[in-house]
């Protein structure tokens, strides 16, 4: 199905609107920050700021849309999982975001346009980062934990300074239902370390798949259309 002509007319007008440049510096500064902090990680992707501008125009509907002066990237809309992920530092976003953005997410309204844009870009970058979790053994000497009434794996891992993965590896037949007082679990003291090992290319297709999640089957075509209008 072709893109709705009404939508292309809206975007044509949006691109021509002088206010479409309102957030150019916000986008450029955010992308420069990611390049400065994470540019040395393996295969850090090329970041086309105009593609992000196309994303913002598509998400908001442009300067004439109500979202332009609020949740420009739709982050923090009712039911939006991205805002919760970012606030909690989940899905590896804590490793991707800058320290100031984490503070701002806790202290400033998400309907602030510049913050909303920074949050949206952070979510894109979190989705683009390929992360791997490594277990680091802190003590080569194995230890034992005697299960007490009410013990749960997460609590045991926390109190014994080890990991769920280590408990699983050392006690492969054990499960939550089989824990009983007096049972002995073996483990090494360990912790998990997450690292960025690769990146996905940030393209219109990537944004359609990972940011929009297939919510609009024309999303990639829409981004490509707006990008074409923005490119000199």
């Amino acid at each position, binding site marked *: 199905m072709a893109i709705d002509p009404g939508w292309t007319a809206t975007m044509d007008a949006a691109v021509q609107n002088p206010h479409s440049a309102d957030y150019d510096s916000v986008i450029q500064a955010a992308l420069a920050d990611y390049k400065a902090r994470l540019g040395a990680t393996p295969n850090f992707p090329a970041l086309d700021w105009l593609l992000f501008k196309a994303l913002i125009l598509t*998400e908001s509907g442009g300067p004439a849309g109500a979202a332009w002066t609020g949740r420009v990237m*739709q982050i923090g809309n009712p039911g939006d999982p991205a805002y919760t992920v970012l606030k909690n530092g989940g*899905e590896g976003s804590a490793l991707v975001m800058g320290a100031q953005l984490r503070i701002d997410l806790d202290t400033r309204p998400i309907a602030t346009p510049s913050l909303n844009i920074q949050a949206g870009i952070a979510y894109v970058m979190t*989705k683009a980062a390929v*992360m791997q*979790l490594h277990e680091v053994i802190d003590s080569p000497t194995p230890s034992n934990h005697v299960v007490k009434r009410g013990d749960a794996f*997460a609590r045991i891992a926390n109190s014994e300074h080890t990991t769920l993965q280590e408990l699983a590896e050392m006690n492969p037949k054990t499960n939550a239902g089989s824990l009983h007082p007096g049972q002995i679990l073996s483990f090494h003291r360990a912790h998990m370390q997450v690292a960025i090992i690769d990146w996905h290319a940030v393209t219109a297709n990537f944004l359609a798949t990972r940011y929009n*999640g*297939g*919510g609009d089957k024309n999303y990639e075509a829409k981004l490509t259309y707006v990008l074409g209008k923005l490119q000199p």
Partner: protein
Amino acid sequence: MGLALAALLLGAAAPQPATQLEAAQSGLIAALRAGHVLDPARVLLRASYVCSVTSGGERLFVADVLEQVRGQPEPRNYERVVLLSAALAPLQQIDVTGATPWFCKSDSLYLSSDATAPDGSSGNVIEFLLGGAAVQMNELDPTRFPLPGG
């Protein structure tokens, strides 16, 4: 009397097997609501059983849940696999947006593409540990996937 007997003989009164599918899906959705997996601010597009895994000697159940955030002007989809206990209590939720869960084998779920765990690690094979208390994301070349079933 004669009509009722005829209906009974023809099986009209017996529930059709397909109705069990609808009942099972309704039960799954009810459990996902009770477990606060579904967000009332999102639109539920689909929730379905995928397959079962065995972890720590327990049989656990994988559901695929697709919801939509009704943003204006662009709706955004949010897809997760949810690991459920035998009592349909949610044990794990993993974002699979952009990937399709394919099949289960032993303690693992195999997917078409990478999923992202809450800790940020990603992979196309989700291994459930300790009876579902933990997950480990693994990366495996799809040509080395095992055959489903068995």
